[in-house]
């Protein structure tokens, strides 16, 4: 490589390294502020501001969904597998909403355990499969669980 | 599966067909923009070819008369 080209290449590479580290530092400084939502643990720890519009996200806790019989009002818990908070909502939920599903809710925190949501969005995970396979997976999972239970009760019986 | 069902796509047809449709149209539009630009460039290259030396001009006129 000719000397002047080498020099130019080195200049460009140096500039790129400097620029990337600058942007890297900037991103590091932004950190959590670029998060689209707070996890329940952060809300419970009081890291999310009360009475201001915030977004929280987590998985809908199995069996926590309480629908009102005469209106759209619904209450459910979301969790990040450590802490959980309650969401209240009075509009229609997205199609993908179901127990165990990841969701993101926007609204105001009444206290560090409850969010009054004005918007609920379903968060999709990265799994894509046809319904038959999902059913089989669910079934084989259930079979496995039952088998384990049988095993356990058998073991209990043995002893 | 009948056509009705196929186009409806379980009530998601609107989103699916708009996605595919707009993608197709956008690609065609850019290709059309390219061909429109090509016409302009052809004229530009030809105009440059004309104001050349007499020899070059001769070559060009010969080809035009062909």
């Amino acid at each position, binding site marked *: 490589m000719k000397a002047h*080209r080498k020099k130019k290449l080195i200049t460009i590479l140096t500039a790129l390294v400097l620029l990337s580290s600058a942007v890297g530092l900037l991103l590091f400084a932004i950190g959590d502020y670029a998060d689209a939502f707070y996890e329940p643990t952060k809300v419970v720890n009081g890291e999310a501001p009360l009475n201001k519009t915030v977004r929280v996200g987590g998985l809908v806790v199995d069996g926590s969904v309480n629908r009102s019989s005469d209106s759209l009002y619904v209450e459910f818990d979301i969790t990040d597998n450590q802490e959980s908070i309650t969401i209240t909502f009075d509009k229609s939920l997205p199609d993908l909403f179901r127990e165990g599903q990841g969701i993101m809710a926007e609204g105001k925190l009444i206290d560090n355990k409850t969010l009054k949501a004005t918007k609920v969005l379903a968060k999709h995970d990265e799994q894509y499969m046809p319904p038959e396979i999902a059913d089989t997976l669910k079934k084989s999972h259930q079979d496995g669980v039952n088998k384990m239970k049988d095993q356990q009760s058998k073991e209990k019986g043995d002893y | 599966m009948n056509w009705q069902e196929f186009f409806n796509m379980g009530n998601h047809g609107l989103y699916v067909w708009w996605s595919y449709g707009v993608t197709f149209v956008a690609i065609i539009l850019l290709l059309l923009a390219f061909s429109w630009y090509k016409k302009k460039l052809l004229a530009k290259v030809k105009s440059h070819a004309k104001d050349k030396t007499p020899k070059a001009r001769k070559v060009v006129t010969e080809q035009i008369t062909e």
Partner: protein
Amino acid sequence: MANASKSFGRWFHQLGSPKWFYQKSAKWLPWLWIATAVLLAFGLYYSLFASPVDYQQGNSVRIMYIHVPAAALSMVGYLAMAICAVIGMVWKMKMSFMAMRAIAPVGALFTFICLFTGSLWGIPTWGTWWEWDARMTSELVLLFLYLGFIALHSSFNDRSKADNAAAILALVGAINIPIIYGSVKWWNTLHQAYSVTKKGAIAPEMQTPLFIMIAGFYLLFAIMVIIRLRLEIMNREAKSKWLQEVIS
């Protein structure tokens, strides 16, 4: 070894010649079109008919087969543009700057397709067409970078100034690419995490059409860049005799 580097050198040299490229690419294009048409015909048949619905999203999962390839190419295209910028600046290769300029509109098109189909996909699955999360915002920034590049390049009368200024923008903007890619990992976003590179995340009967469509989109991208690059050559070599002879 010496032989290999020699033949690479020759290939690099040929690729650097507008005349060689203009004449050769005319022969490549029909074949590329045939390959693309075959891939996209198969891909569309699979993605619209022959692939199963998703267990959660139903039919709207079919948007994935154009959204994901478009997203991949929007990023790969920008990286290619940045590489062309470096080669152009260091080796003063004319063709490299021409290729850089040719990629921009095609990359912008694929970025637009990615954003548009993503929004349409978001309505039934998430319940919203837009959310200012890290992934969506950085992809929107990518569209503005492409458009900014085109605007900057066309704002100069002096072509070599235009090339150099736009090349710097292409290079600086390339920092956005790892941010787009990493956004779903570094921050929590409404957008889901990686599926394509994660083993077993996509069922095989959905992966096949997806890969066919990705291959088809790569070829389509290449075709459109080649077409635009031939126009760029026409524009810049309008005064050269070889081109005038080829055209008339």
